[in-house]
Protein backbone atom coordinates (compact mmCIF):
# COMPACT_ATOMS: atom_id res chain seq x y z
CA UNK A 1 0.00 0.00 0.00
CA UNK A 2 1.43 3.36 -0.94
CA UNK A 3 0.59 6.52 0.86
CA UNK A 4 1.39 10.03 -0.22
CA UNK A 5 4.16 11.58 1.83
CA UNK A 6 2.90 13.59 4.76
CA UNK A 7 3.72 17.24 4.75
CA UNK A 8 5.55 18.43 7.85
CA UNK A 9 4.58 21.20 10.28
CA UNK A 10 7.88 23.07 10.19
CA UNK A 11 6.84 26.59 11.14
CA UNK A 12 3.85 25.83 13.32
CA UNK A 13 4.16 25.36 17.08
CA UNK A 14 2.11 24.41 20.14
CA UNK A 15 2.21 26.61 23.17
CA UNK A 16 0.54 27.81 26.40
CA UNK A 17 -0.65 24.58 28.03
CA UNK A 18 -3.59 25.40 30.33
CA UNK A 19 -5.36 23.22 32.87
CA UNK A 20 -8.51 24.46 34.57
CA UNK A 21 -8.20 22.67 37.93
CA UNK A 22 -10.40 19.60 38.20
CA UNK A 23 -13.20 19.18 40.70
CA UNK A 24 -15.12 15.98 41.38
CA UNK A 25 -18.50 17.63 40.75
CA UNK A 26 -19.50 21.06 39.55
CA UNK A 27 -22.74 22.97 39.27
CA UNK A 28 -21.24 24.98 36.42
CA UNK A 29 -21.99 24.13 32.81
CA UNK A 30 -19.36 23.07 30.31
CA UNK A 31 -19.38 26.64 28.98
CA UNK A 32 -17.92 27.85 32.28
CA UNK A 33 -14.98 25.53 31.89
CA UNK A 34 -14.46 26.54 28.26
CA UNK A 35 -14.44 30.19 29.37
CA UNK A 36 -11.90 29.53 32.11
CA UNK A 37 -9.69 27.65 29.67
CA UNK A 38 -9.82 30.48 27.11
CA UNK A 39 -9.09 33.04 29.81
CA UNK A 40 -6.09 30.93 30.82
CA UNK A 41 -4.85 30.86 27.23
CA UNK A 42 -5.15 34.65 26.89
CA UNK A 43 -3.48 35.24 30.22
CA UNK A 44 -0.66 32.86 29.38
CA UNK A 45 -0.06 34.37 25.94
CA UNK A 46 -0.89 38.01 26.81
CA UNK A 47 -3.05 38.04 23.69
CA UNK A 48 -6.36 39.86 23.52
CA UNK A 49 -9.53 37.93 22.93
CA UNK A 50 -9.87 39.45 19.47
CA UNK A 51 -6.52 37.93 18.47
CA UNK A 52 -8.05 34.46 18.58
CA UNK A 53 -9.40 33.66 15.14
CA UNK A 54 -9.75 29.90 15.43
CA UNK A 55 -11.34 27.54 17.95
CA UNK A 56 -11.26 23.78 18.09
CA UNK A 57 -13.57 22.43 20.79
CA UNK A 58 -14.19 19.05 22.34
CA UNK A 59 -16.91 18.54 24.96
CA UNK A 60 -19.47 15.89 25.82
CA UNK A 61 -21.53 18.14 28.09
CA UNK A 62 -22.02 21.37 26.15
CA UNK A 63 -25.26 20.01 24.67
CA UNK A 64 -27.51 21.27 23.24
CA UNK A 65 -24.73 23.58 22.11
CA UNK A 66 -21.88 22.69 19.81
CA UNK A 67 -18.78 24.79 19.17
CA UNK A 68 -20.80 27.30 17.20
CA UNK A 69 -23.05 28.02 20.17
CA UNK A 70 -19.97 28.70 22.23
CA UNK A 71 -18.86 31.45 19.86
CA UNK A 72 -21.93 33.52 20.69
CA UNK A 73 -22.06 32.45 24.33
CA UNK A 74 -18.48 33.63 24.86
CA UNK A 75 -18.44 36.47 22.34
CA UNK A 76 -15.86 35.05 19.98
CA UNK A 77 -15.71 36.19 16.36
CA UNK A 78 -13.77 33.57 14.44
CA UNK A 79 -12.82 32.70 10.91
CA UNK A 80 -12.13 29.04 11.65
CA UNK A 81 -14.11 26.69 13.89
CA UNK A 82 -14.06 22.97 14.50
CA UNK A 83 -15.77 20.58 16.88
CA UNK A 84 -14.05 17.27 17.58
CA UNK A 85 -16.31 14.79 19.39
CA UNK A 86 -13.62 12.13 19.70
CA UNK A 87 -13.08 11.82 23.44
CA UNK A 88 -9.70 10.34 24.21
CA UNK A 89 -8.36 11.11 20.75
CA UNK A 90 -9.59 14.72 20.84
CA UNK A 91 -6.24 16.21 21.81
CA UNK A 92 -4.36 14.58 18.95
CA UNK A 93 -7.05 15.13 16.35
CA UNK A 94 -7.66 18.71 17.50
CA UNK A 95 -3.95 19.42 17.25
CA UNK A 96 -3.82 17.98 13.74
CA UNK A 97 -6.73 20.11 12.56
CA UNK A 98 -5.35 23.26 14.14
CA UNK A 99 -1.86 22.74 12.72
CA UNK A 100 -3.14 22.54 9.17
CA UNK A 101 -5.47 25.50 9.67
CA UNK A 102 -2.61 27.71 10.75
CA UNK A 103 -0.23 26.29 8.16
CA UNK A 104 -2.67 26.99 5.33
CA UNK A 105 -3.39 30.48 6.55
CA UNK A 106 -7.04 29.78 7.33
CA UNK A 107 -6.37 30.93 10.87
CA UNK A 108 -3.52 32.64 12.70
CA UNK A 109 -4.11 31.59 16.29
CA UNK A 110 -6.22 28.56 17.13
CA UNK A 111 -7.33 27.81 20.66
CA UNK A 112 -7.72 24.06 21.18
CA UNK A 113 -9.99 23.43 24.15
CA UNK A 114 -11.46 20.33 25.78
CA UNK A 115 -13.84 21.04 28.63
CA UNK A 116 -16.52 19.15 30.49
CA UNK A 117 -18.57 19.54 33.57
CA UNK A 118 -19.64 16.74 35.88
CA UNK A 119 -22.98 17.06 37.59
CA UNK A 120 -24.66 14.35 39.59
CA UNK A 121 -26.19 12.52 36.63
CA UNK A 122 -23.81 13.60 33.86
CA UNK A 123 -21.85 10.42 33.52
CA UNK A 124 -24.87 8.12 33.41
CA UNK A 125 -26.52 10.31 30.79
CA UNK A 126 -23.36 10.30 28.68
CA UNK A 127 -23.04 6.52 28.93
CA UNK A 128 -26.68 5.82 28.15
CA UNK A 129 -26.78 7.80 24.95
CA UNK A 130 -23.12 7.62 23.98
CA UNK A 131 -23.88 6.15 20.57
CA UNK A 132 -26.66 4.32 18.76
CA UNK A 133 -24.88 0.99 19.14
CA UNK A 134 -24.19 1.62 22.83
CA UNK A 135 -27.83 2.49 23.43
CA UNK A 136 -29.12 -0.55 21.52
CA UNK A 137 -26.57 -3.24 22.27
CA UNK A 138 -24.47 -2.34 25.33
CA UNK A 139 -26.38 -0.23 27.86
CA UNK A 140 -29.31 -2.72 28.09
CA UNK A 141 -26.83 -5.34 29.33
CA UNK A 142 -26.27 -4.22 32.89
CA UNK A 143 -25.47 -0.57 32.08
CA UNK A 144 -21.90 -1.03 33.19
CA UNK A 145 -20.61 1.72 30.91
CA UNK A 146 -16.96 1.78 29.89
CA UNK A 147 -16.03 -0.35 32.90
CA UNK A 148 -17.80 -3.33 31.36
CA UNK A 149 -16.37 -2.74 27.89
CA UNK A 150 -12.81 -2.53 29.18
CA UNK A 151 -13.37 -5.49 31.49
CA UNK A 152 -13.95 -7.65 28.39
CA UNK A 153 -10.78 -6.32 26.74
CA UNK A 154 -8.74 -6.69 29.93
CA UNK A 155 -9.91 -10.24 30.63
CA UNK A 156 -9.16 -11.26 27.05
CA UNK A 157 -5.76 -9.60 27.08
CA UNK A 158 -4.81 -11.30 30.36
CA UNK A 159 -5.86 -14.72 29.11
CA UNK A 160 -4.18 -14.33 25.71
CA UNK A 161 -0.91 -12.65 26.65
CA UNK A 162 -0.38 -13.75 30.23
CA UNK A 163 -0.74 -10.36 31.86
CA UNK A 164 -1.40 -10.40 35.59
CA UNK A 165 -3.27 -7.99 37.81
CA UNK A 166 0.10 -7.12 39.34
CA UNK A 167 1.31 -5.84 35.97
CA UNK A 168 -1.55 -3.40 35.62
CA UNK A 169 -1.15 -2.55 39.29
CA UNK A 170 2.47 -1.62 38.76
CA UNK A 171 1.44 0.98 36.17
CA UNK A 172 -1.29 2.40 38.39
CA UNK A 173 1.04 2.63 41.39
CA UNK A 174 3.78 4.30 39.31
CA UNK A 175 1.32 6.84 37.96
CA UNK A 176 0.11 7.59 41.45
CA UNK A 177 3.70 8.25 42.48
CA UNK A 178 3.96 10.74 39.61
CA UNK A 179 0.67 12.32 40.66
CA UNK A 180 1.79 12.89 44.25
CA UNK A 181 4.06 15.66 42.99
CA UNK A 182 1.51 17.06 40.51
CA UNK A 183 -0.49 19.77 42.29
CA UNK A 184 -3.61 19.44 40.10
CA UNK A 185 -4.16 15.70 40.66
CA UNK A 186 -7.42 14.85 42.42
CA UNK A 187 -5.82 11.80 44.04
CA UNK A 188 -3.32 12.95 46.63
CA UNK A 189 -2.74 9.80 48.65
CA UNK A 190 -0.12 7.17 47.81
CA UNK A 191 -1.40 3.91 46.37
CA UNK A 192 0.19 0.58 47.27
CA UNK A 193 0.07 -2.53 45.13
CA UNK A 194 -1.84 -4.28 47.94
CA UNK A 195 -4.48 -1.55 47.97
CA UNK A 196 -4.75 -1.84 44.19
CA UNK A 197 -5.15 -5.64 44.28
CA UNK A 198 -7.62 -5.67 47.17
CA UNK A 199 -9.78 -2.75 46.03
CA UNK A 200 -13.53 -3.04 45.56
CA UNK A 201 -14.40 -5.09 42.45
CA UNK A 202 -16.10 -3.05 39.70
CA UNK A 203 -16.31 -5.31 36.64
CA UNK A 204 -14.18 -8.42 36.91
CA UNK A 205 -11.16 -8.34 36.48
CA UNK A 206 -11.28 -4.54 36.97
CA UNK A 207 -11.26 -3.13 40.45
CA UNK A 208 -11.60 0.42 41.71
CA UNK A 209 -8.10 1.69 40.88
CA UNK A 210 -8.26 0.38 37.31
CA UNK A 211 -11.00 2.90 36.64
CA UNK A 212 -10.74 6.66 36.16
CA UNK A 213 -12.79 9.00 38.29
CA UNK A 214 -15.14 11.21 36.28
CA UNK A 215 -14.78 14.86 37.21
CA UNK A 216 -15.13 18.40 35.80
CA UNK A 217 -12.34 20.47 34.30
CA UNK A 218 -10.65 21.63 31.14
CA UNK A 219 -7.38 21.46 29.23
CA UNK A 220 -6.27 23.75 26.42
CA UNK A 221 -3.37 24.94 24.30
CA UNK A 222 -2.66 27.35 21.46
CA UNK A 223 -1.41 26.65 17.94
CA UNK A 224 0.32 29.45 16.03
CA UNK A 225 3.28 30.23 13.78
CA UNK A 226 6.72 29.94 15.32
CA UNK A 227 7.56 33.63 14.73
CA UNK A 228 4.40 34.70 16.52
CA UNK A 229 5.26 32.58 19.55
CA UNK A 230 8.77 33.99 19.54
CA UNK A 231 7.44 37.56 19.31
CA UNK A 232 5.19 36.86 22.27
CA UNK A 233 8.08 35.35 24.21
CA UNK A 234 6.28 32.03 24.69
CA UNK A 235 7.85 28.65 25.38
CA UNK A 236 6.69 26.33 22.65
CA UNK A 237 7.07 22.87 21.19
CA UNK A 238 7.43 21.83 17.58
CA UNK A 239 5.36 19.04 16.13
CA UNK A 240 7.59 16.44 14.48
CA UNK A 241 4.90 14.02 13.37
CA UNK A 242 1.28 13.04 13.90
CA UNK A 243 -1.08 10.22 12.94
CA UNK A 244 -4.73 9.33 13.36
CA UNK A 245 -6.78 6.29 12.35
CA UNK A 246 -10.42 5.34 12.91
CA UNK A 247 -12.11 1.93 13.06
CA UNK A 248 -8.80 0.30 12.25
CA UNK A 249 -9.31 -3.46 12.47
CA UNK A 250 -13.06 -4.03 12.12
CA UNK A 251 -12.68 -7.77 11.56
CA UNK A 252 -10.85 -8.46 14.82
CA UNK A 253 -13.35 -10.35 17.01
CA UNK A 254 -12.23 -8.33 20.05
CA UNK A 255 -9.84 -5.44 20.36
CA UNK A 256 -6.22 -6.27 21.14
CA UNK A 257 -4.67 -3.62 18.89
CA UNK A 258 -5.36 -0.16 17.57
CA UNK A 259 -4.64 1.89 14.48
CA UNK A 260 -1.20 2.99 15.71
CA UNK A 261 0.08 -0.35 14.35
CA UNK A 262 -0.71 0.79 10.81
CA UNK A 263 0.84 4.23 11.08
CA UNK A 264 3.65 4.10 13.62
CA UNK A 265 6.40 3.66 11.01
CA UNK A 266 5.20 6.74 9.19
CA UNK A 267 4.94 8.61 12.48
CA UNK A 268 8.54 7.94 13.41
CA UNK A 269 9.73 8.49 9.84
CA UNK A 270 7.96 11.83 9.61
CA UNK A 271 9.34 12.82 13.00
CA UNK A 272 12.85 11.72 12.14
CA UNK A 273 13.36 10.14 15.55
CA UNK A 274 13.70 6.61 16.92
CA UNK A 275 11.97 5.01 19.87
CA UNK A 276 15.10 5.47 21.98
CA UNK A 277 14.82 9.24 21.45
CA UNK A 278 11.48 9.45 23.23
CA UNK A 279 12.03 10.97 26.67
CA UNK A 280 8.49 10.52 27.92
CA UNK A 281 5.30 8.84 26.81
CA UNK A 282 1.78 10.02 27.54
CA UNK A 283 -0.68 7.22 26.87
CA UNK A 284 -4.43 7.51 26.99
CA UNK A 285 -4.93 5.68 30.26
CA UNK A 286 -8.62 5.32 30.95
CA UNK A 287 -7.74 1.73 31.94
CA UNK A 288 -4.23 0.31 32.35
CA UNK A 289 -4.69 -2.39 29.69
CA UNK A 290 -5.07 0.38 27.13
CA UNK A 291 -1.78 1.92 28.17
CA UNK A 292 -0.07 -1.44 27.66
CA UNK A 293 -1.75 -1.79 24.27
CA UNK A 294 -0.37 1.59 23.23
CA UNK A 295 3.16 0.69 24.33
CA UNK A 296 2.92 -2.36 22.08
CA UNK A 297 1.18 -0.75 19.14
CA UNK A 298 3.44 2.30 19.09
CA UNK A 299 6.34 -0.13 18.84
CA UNK A 300 8.04 0.15 22.23
CA UNK A 301 7.62 -3.63 22.44
CA UNK A 302 5.99 -6.31 20.32
CA UNK A 303 2.34 -7.40 20.61
CA UNK A 304 2.04 -9.66 23.62
CA UNK A 305 5.30 -8.46 25.15
CA UNK A 306 3.50 -5.72 27.08
CA UNK A 307 3.46 -7.63 30.38
CA UNK A 308 7.23 -8.24 30.20
CA UNK A 309 7.80 -4.65 29.19
CA UNK A 310 5.86 -3.50 32.25
CA UNK A 311 7.83 -5.85 34.49
CA UNK A 312 11.17 -4.57 33.22
CA UNK A 313 10.56 -0.82 33.44
CA UNK A 314 9.64 1.75 36.01
CA UNK A 315 7.23 4.36 34.77
CA UNK A 316 7.99 7.10 37.26
CA UNK A 317 9.31 10.50 36.23
CA UNK A 318 12.75 9.66 37.60
CA UNK A 319 12.70 6.18 36.07
CA UNK A 320 13.87 4.57 32.85
CA UNK A 321 10.63 5.06 30.89
CA UNK A 322 8.51 7.92 32.22
CA UNK A 323 4.83 7.41 31.39
CA UNK A 324 1.91 9.66 32.25
CA UNK A 325 4.12 12.01 34.16
CA UNK A 326 1.32 14.01 35.79
CA UNK A 327 -0.29 10.83 37.07
CA UNK A 328 -2.51 10.45 34.03
CA UNK A 329 -6.26 10.25 34.14
CA UNK A 330 -6.03 7.37 36.60
CA UNK A 331 -4.65 9.70 39.25
CA UNK A 332 -5.51 13.21 38.05
CA UNK A 333 -9.13 12.42 37.13
CA UNK A 334 -11.06 12.22 33.85
CA UNK A 335 -12.73 15.51 33.03
CA UNK A 336 -14.66 14.16 30.04
CA UNK A 337 -13.03 15.10 26.75
CA UNK A 338 -10.27 16.89 28.67
CA UNK A 339 -8.97 13.38 29.34
CA UNK A 340 -7.97 13.36 25.69
CA UNK A 341 -5.96 16.56 26.20
CA UNK A 342 -4.30 15.77 29.52
CA UNK A 343 -1.28 14.06 27.98
CA UNK A 344 -0.78 16.89 25.51
CA UNK A 345 -0.68 19.71 28.06
CA UNK A 346 1.52 17.68 30.41
CA UNK A 347 3.95 16.78 27.61
CA UNK A 348 4.13 20.44 26.54
CA UNK A 349 5.04 21.47 30.08
CA UNK A 350 7.64 18.76 30.46
CA UNK A 351 9.50 19.49 27.22
CA UNK A 352 9.41 23.25 27.62
CA UNK A 353 10.83 23.20 31.14
CA UNK A 354 7.56 24.27 32.71
CA UNK A 355 6.59 21.15 34.62
CA UNK A 356 4.11 21.70 37.45
CA UNK A 357 5.14 18.48 39.16
CA UNK A 358 8.28 16.39 39.04
CA UNK A 359 10.26 17.29 35.95
CA UNK A 360 11.57 14.46 33.80
CA UNK A 361 15.31 15.18 33.64
CA UNK A 362 16.43 16.59 30.26
CA UNK A 363 13.06 15.95 28.66
CA UNK A 364 13.12 17.12 25.06
CA UNK A 365 11.00 14.75 23.00
CA UNK A 366 7.58 13.46 23.97
CA UNK A 367 5.19 11.02 22.38
CA UNK A 368 1.54 11.71 23.15
CA UNK A 369 -1.03 9.07 22.29
CA UNK A 370 -4.80 9.28 22.09
CA UNK A 371 -7.50 6.64 22.08
CA UNK A 372 -11.20 7.15 22.20
CA UNK A 373 -14.83 6.38 21.63
CA UNK A 374 -16.08 2.97 22.63
CA UNK A 375 -18.89 3.24 20.13
CA UNK A 376 -19.83 -0.40 20.69
CA UNK A 377 -17.30 -3.07 21.66
CA UNK A 378 -13.97 -1.31 21.05
CA UNK A 379 -12.26 2.07 20.91
CA UNK A 380 -12.50 3.48 17.41
CA UNK A 381 -10.17 6.49 17.36
CA UNK A 382 -6.40 6.22 17.64
CA UNK A 383 -3.85 8.94 17.23
CA UNK A 384 -0.40 10.02 18.27
CA UNK A 385 1.94 12.99 18.03
CA UNK A 386 5.65 13.42 18.60
CA UNK A 387 6.57 16.82 20.03
CA UNK A 388 9.97 18.40 20.51
CA UNK A 389 10.74 21.06 23.09
CA UNK A 390 12.64 24.23 22.33
CA UNK A 391 16.02 22.73 23.01
CA UNK A 392 15.48 19.63 20.96
Amino acid at each position, binding site marked *: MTTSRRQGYEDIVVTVPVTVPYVRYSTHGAHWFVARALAGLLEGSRLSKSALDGLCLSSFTAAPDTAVGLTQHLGLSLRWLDHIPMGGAAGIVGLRRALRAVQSGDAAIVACVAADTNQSDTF*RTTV*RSFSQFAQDAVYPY*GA*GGPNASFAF*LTAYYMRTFGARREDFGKLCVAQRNNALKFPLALFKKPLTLEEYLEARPIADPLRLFDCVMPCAGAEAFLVMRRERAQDLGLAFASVLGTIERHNSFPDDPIQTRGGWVLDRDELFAQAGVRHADIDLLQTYDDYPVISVMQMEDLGFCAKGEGPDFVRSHTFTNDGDFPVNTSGGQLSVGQAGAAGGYLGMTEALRQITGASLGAAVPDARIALVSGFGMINYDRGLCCGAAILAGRNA
Partner: protein
Amino acid sequence: MTRSLEEPGQNSPVPQARVLLPPSRRSHIALGLTTAAAQGRFELQVCSSCGAVQYPPREACHRCLSVLLDWQFQDGGGELISETTLFHSHDEFFREHLPLRLGMVRLDSGPTAIVYLHGKVPPAPARVKVDARLDKAGRAVLVAFPGDDTKMADADPAGDSPLWEAGCGPHSRTVPPTGGTVGK
Protein backbone atom coordinates in the same frame (compact mmCIF):
# COMPACT_ATOMS: atom_id res chain seq x y z
CA MET B 1 -56.57 28.87 46.12
CA THR B 2 -54.73 26.60 48.46
CA ARG B 3 -55.60 24.35 51.33
CA SER B 4 -53.37 22.47 53.65
CA LEU B 5 -52.93 18.77 53.02
CA GLU B 6 -54.80 16.45 55.31
CA GLU B 7 -52.89 14.03 57.48
CA PRO B 8 -53.31 10.55 55.98
CA GLY B 9 -55.68 8.51 58.09
CA GLN B 10 -55.23 4.99 59.41
CA ASN B 11 -56.77 3.53 56.30
CA SER B 12 -54.57 5.36 53.83
CA PRO B 13 -53.67 3.18 50.90
CA VAL B 14 -50.41 1.27 50.97
CA PRO B 15 -47.73 3.40 49.32
CA GLN B 16 -47.29 2.19 45.80
CA ALA B 17 -44.12 0.19 45.30
CA ARG B 18 -41.95 1.66 42.62
CA VAL B 19 -41.62 -0.74 39.70
CA LEU B 20 -38.16 -0.63 38.22
CA LEU B 21 -37.64 -1.75 34.65
CA PRO B 22 -34.51 -2.26 32.59
CA PRO B 23 -33.64 0.52 30.11
CA SER B 24 -36.11 0.34 27.25
CA ARG B 25 -34.74 2.96 24.92
CA ARG B 26 -33.78 1.55 21.52
CA SER B 27 -33.36 2.98 18.06
CA HIS B 28 -36.20 2.30 15.67
CA ILE B 29 -34.12 -0.12 13.65
CA ALA B 30 -33.09 -2.12 16.73
CA LEU B 31 -36.73 -2.92 17.49
CA GLY B 32 -36.58 -5.52 14.72
CA LEU B 33 -34.76 -7.74 17.19
CA THR B 34 -37.66 -7.36 19.61
CA THR B 35 -40.27 -8.01 16.93
CA ALA B 36 -38.67 -11.39 16.20
CA ALA B 37 -37.96 -12.22 19.85
CA ALA B 38 -41.61 -11.66 20.70
CA GLN B 39 -42.37 -14.51 18.30
CA GLY B 40 -39.70 -16.71 19.82
CA ARG B 41 -37.09 -16.22 17.15
CA PHE B 42 -33.55 -14.86 17.10
CA GLU B 43 -33.16 -12.80 13.96
CA LEU B 44 -30.45 -10.48 12.72
CA GLN B 45 -30.24 -8.31 9.64
CA VAL B 46 -28.64 -9.99 6.63
CA CYS B 47 -27.49 -8.05 3.58
CA SER B 48 -29.47 -8.94 0.44
CA SER B 49 -26.56 -7.91 -1.73
CA CYS B 50 -23.52 -9.54 -0.12
CA GLY B 51 -24.93 -11.78 2.62
CA ALA B 52 -23.05 -10.13 5.49
CA VAL B 53 -24.75 -10.56 8.86
CA GLN B 54 -25.08 -7.32 10.85
CA TYR B 55 -25.02 -6.61 14.56
CA PRO B 56 -25.76 -4.26 16.25
CA PRO B 57 -28.78 -3.46 14.08
CA ARG B 58 -28.09 -0.75 11.52
CA GLU B 59 -29.30 1.13 8.48
CA ALA B 60 -26.78 -0.11 5.95
CA CYS B 61 -24.45 -3.04 5.35
CA HIS B 62 -21.06 -2.60 7.02
CA ARG B 63 -19.43 -4.47 4.14
CA CYS B 64 -21.02 -3.16 0.93
CA LEU B 65 -23.21 -0.22 2.07
CA SER B 66 -26.36 -1.78 0.66
CA VAL B 67 -29.46 -0.60 2.46
CA LEU B 68 -31.37 -3.78 1.64
CA LEU B 69 -31.13 -5.63 4.94
CA ASP B 70 -33.55 -8.43 5.79
CA TRP B 71 -34.24 -9.82 9.25
CA GLN B 72 -33.40 -13.52 9.05
CA PHE B 73 -33.41 -16.42 11.49
CA GLN B 74 -30.07 -17.06 13.22
CA ASP B 75 -28.74 -20.33 14.49
CA GLY B 76 -26.94 -18.42 17.25
CA GLY B 77 -23.84 -20.61 17.48
CA GLY B 78 -20.70 -18.83 18.57
CA GLU B 79 -17.73 -18.66 20.85
CA LEU B 80 -17.66 -16.90 24.18
CA ILE B 81 -14.39 -15.02 23.81
CA SER B 82 -14.47 -12.88 26.96
CA GLU B 83 -16.60 -12.29 29.99
CA THR B 84 -17.02 -10.09 33.00
CA THR B 85 -19.02 -9.96 36.18
CA LEU B 86 -20.45 -6.53 36.88
CA PHE B 87 -20.42 -5.26 40.44
CA HIS B 88 -21.41 -1.72 39.51
CA SER B 89 -24.13 -0.36 37.27
CA HIS B 90 -25.28 3.08 36.17
CA ASP B 91 -28.90 1.93 36.13
CA GLU B 92 -31.17 1.55 39.15
CA PHE B 93 -32.88 -1.61 37.89
CA PHE B 94 -29.63 -3.45 37.35
CA ARG B 95 -28.25 -2.34 40.70
CA GLU B 96 -30.82 -4.55 42.38
CA HIS B 97 -29.54 -7.57 40.44
CA LEU B 98 -25.77 -7.27 40.91
CA PRO B 99 -23.47 -9.07 40.49
CA LEU B 100 -24.31 -9.75 36.90
CA ARG B 101 -22.43 -11.95 34.43
CA LEU B 102 -21.95 -10.78 30.85
CA GLY B 103 -20.17 -12.21 27.86
CA MET B 104 -18.71 -11.14 24.57
CA VAL B 105 -19.58 -13.69 21.88
CA ARG B 106 -18.16 -14.02 18.39
CA LEU B 107 -21.08 -15.40 16.43
CA ASP B 108 -20.21 -18.01 13.80
CA SER B 109 -22.06 -15.78 11.35
CA GLY B 110 -19.55 -12.98 11.90
CA PRO B 111 -20.57 -10.24 14.34
CA THR B 112 -19.50 -9.82 17.95
CA ALA B 113 -22.35 -9.57 20.44
CA ILE B 114 -22.49 -8.51 24.08
CA VAL B 115 -24.84 -10.90 25.86
CA TYR B 116 -26.15 -12.10 29.18
CA LEU B 117 -24.69 -15.44 30.19
CA HIS B 118 -26.83 -18.31 31.37
CA GLY B 119 -25.51 -19.57 34.71
CA LYS B 120 -24.30 -22.85 33.25
CA VAL B 121 -22.05 -21.30 30.60
CA PRO B 122 -18.47 -22.26 31.52
CA PRO B 123 -15.69 -19.64 31.71
CA ALA B 124 -14.42 -18.19 28.41
CA PRO B 125 -13.38 -19.53 25.95
CA ALA B 126 -16.43 -21.74 25.44
CA ARG B 127 -18.93 -22.71 22.78
CA VAL B 128 -22.29 -21.06 23.31
CA LYS B 129 -25.65 -20.73 21.66
CA VAL B 130 -27.08 -17.22 21.55
CA ASP B 131 -30.81 -16.67 21.59
CA ALA B 132 -33.03 -13.61 21.88
CA ARG B 133 -35.29 -13.18 24.90
CA LEU B 134 -37.51 -10.39 26.11
CA ASP B 135 -36.57 -8.47 29.23
CA LYS B 136 -38.97 -7.03 31.74
CA ALA B 137 -39.33 -3.89 29.68
CA GLY B 138 -40.49 -5.97 26.73
CA ARG B 139 -37.33 -5.38 24.73
CA ALA B 140 -35.16 -8.07 23.17
CA VAL B 141 -31.91 -8.97 24.89
CA LEU B 142 -29.41 -11.59 23.77
CA VAL B 143 -28.62 -14.48 26.09
CA ALA B 144 -25.89 -17.10 25.62
CA PHE B 145 -26.67 -20.67 26.66
CA PRO B 146 -24.09 -23.40 27.13
CA GLY B 147 -22.79 -25.51 24.27
CA ASP B 148 -24.12 -26.23 20.83
CA ASP B 149 -27.23 -27.87 22.18
CA THR B 150 -30.34 -25.99 21.21
CA LYS B 151 -32.35 -28.31 23.42
CA MET B 152 -30.55 -26.85 26.41
CA ALA B 153 -31.94 -23.46 25.63
CA ASP B 154 -35.42 -24.93 25.31
CA ALA B 155 -35.33 -27.37 28.23
CA ASP B 156 -33.68 -25.10 30.74
CA PRO B 157 -34.50 -21.81 29.20
CA ALA B 158 -33.30 -19.30 31.67
CA GLY B 159 -33.18 -20.59 35.17
CA ASP B 160 -34.80 -17.96 37.30
CA SER B 161 -33.01 -14.94 35.96
CA PRO B 162 -34.80 -11.69 36.62
CA LEU B 163 -33.02 -10.21 33.62
CA TRP B 164 -34.88 -11.98 30.87
CA GLU B 165 -38.14 -13.85 30.56
CA ALA B 166 -37.96 -17.63 30.63
CA GLY B 167 -39.30 -18.01 27.15
CA CYS B 168 -40.85 -16.02 24.39
CA GLY B 169 -42.69 -18.72 22.54
CA PRO B 170 -46.39 -18.08 22.15
CA HIS B 171 -47.21 -21.31 24.04
CA SER B 172 -49.20 -20.33 27.12
CA ARG B 173 -47.64 -16.89 27.13
CA THR B 174 -48.90 -13.47 26.39
CA VAL B 175 -47.13 -11.85 23.48
CA PRO B 176 -46.30 -8.36 24.68
CA PRO B 177 -47.03 -5.39 22.50
CA THR B 178 -43.87 -4.14 20.82
CA GLY B 179 -44.96 -1.40 18.52
CA GLY B 180 -43.50 -3.47 15.72
CA THR B 181 -45.28 -5.75 13.31
CA VAL B 182 -45.89 -8.65 15.66
CA GLY B 183 -48.12 -11.48 14.58
CA LYS B 184 -49.85 -12.13 11.33
